[in-house]
């Protein structure tokens, strides 16, 4: 998938984390775009919090069924072999560690793996929905995010300043510029997007990060 840039690149890189048959939860926006970049032979079970195992693509409006909606209340579909379950069971799947990976957008993420994406006090208060349960229960939490705010400020911080969604839960951070693995001692720069160098990443990243001997190419 060489040649991808921006959010498409983020989604394509995140898609590489999955193996065939994985059970995943993908947030709205860039995370959900992952399904467009799955490697050949990789089929996923996509979960929707309302209680779908095996979400399909968005139906056409004329095929929409008011009794079949996704986590955001939008028309949904179910793949062959997919099923519906109770909302309590849906979160038993999430909290109980049955989901292999989740990809989440974020407002901030930090070098300890803390994630803050549910509120900006006094400004933006959507609520945490199911995000805190995902952070608490899913083994692999991939943060898919623009590297910086539109204002140019880094979203990858030494320490989150907004209220946390999950403490020390991120396992991977993918931006349009690079991919960090979250290790026990901090975040590790694993891959660079063509055109970016360690120095360039340092300049746009507030967090400290570990630079290993060998850094791959993100594509």
């Amino acid at each position, binding site marked *: 998938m060489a040649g991808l840039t921006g959010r498409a690149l983020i989604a394509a890189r995140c898609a590489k984390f999955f193996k065939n048959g994985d059970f995943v939860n993908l947030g709205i926006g860039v995370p959900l775009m992952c399904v467009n970049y799955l490697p050949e032979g990789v089929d996923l079970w996509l979960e*929707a*919090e*309302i*209680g*779908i195992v095996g979400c399909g693509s968005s139906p056409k*409006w004329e095929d*929409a*069924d*008011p*009794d*079949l*909606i996704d986590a*955001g*209340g*939008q*028309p*949904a579909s*179910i793949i062959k072999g997919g099923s*519906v379950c*109770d*909302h*309590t069971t*849906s*979160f038993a799947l*999430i*909290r109980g560690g049955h989901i292999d990976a989740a990809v989440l957008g974020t407002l901030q993420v930090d070098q300890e793996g*803390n994630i803050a994406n*549910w*509120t900006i006090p*006094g400004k933006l*208060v*959507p*609520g*945490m*929905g*199911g*995000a*805190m*349960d995902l*952070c*608490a*229960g899913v083994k692999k939490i991939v943060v898919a995010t623009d590297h910086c705010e539109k204002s140019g400020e880094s979203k990858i911080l030494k320490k989150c300043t907004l*209220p*946390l*969604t*999950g*403490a*020390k839960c991120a396992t991977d951070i993918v931006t349009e510029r690079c991919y960090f693995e979250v290790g026990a001692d901090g975040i590790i720069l694993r891959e660079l997007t063509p055109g970016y160098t360690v120095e360039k990443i340092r300049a746009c990243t507030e967090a400290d990060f570990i630079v290993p001997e060998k850094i791959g190419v993100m594509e």
Partner: protein
Amino acid sequence: MRSKVVTREEALTKIKDGQTIMFGDWHGELSAEEIITGMLEKGIQNISAIAVSAGMPDQGVGRLIKEHRVKSIVTTHIGLNPVARDQMFAGELEVEFIPQGTFAERIRCGGAGLGGCLTPTGIGTDVEIGKQKLTINGKDYLLELPLYSDVALIKAWKADTAGNIAFRLTGRATNSYMAFAADIVIVEVEELVEVGELGPEEIDVAAPIIDMVYVRTGEKKPFCLMWQRAKAKAEGGKK
């Protein structure tokens, strides 16, 4: 078995000012809209609401919020209802945000006679505030307490006259478990059938815990305004 089918007026006699009311729905979809219309007409106010979100301004519990009939809401999300956000910032609506899995479990505890449950969700976040923390096998958990209500307003697909109800696909949403966690359970359905028409495996919630069945008289499955707007936009975009 005696029939639990009631008129909307009979159902509304059980709904009173100041009650704690659970609204089964999904962001205002799949909710008991005709009973809610009745609540608006009757002037019910001071509601303590429990709902997975604040709905939308034109839908579900959101309609009651818009008319200032709701004083507080326990919820997981209000992002689809800017009216709720404005009332919250203005101090007119008290909002308690809880994680969605915790929301489901607290209501399940209320319905199942459990005094609470221990969840790892929210550990290390502001959700911890004011809650007891317990360490089990070296892992931290929050003690979350049951939620229970005076009335649960449930929307289902079908009911039989005895009060058995069935959902379609994601229509169960939060409706299925809220039916266990209220003194009075009122279900609004699209279709009424005779006892025996729903088989033993089709019934999602058994008759003994449903108090009243109200059969919707208006459109069976109205697409909500958000959908209608999004559809209009999508179709407009194609031109």
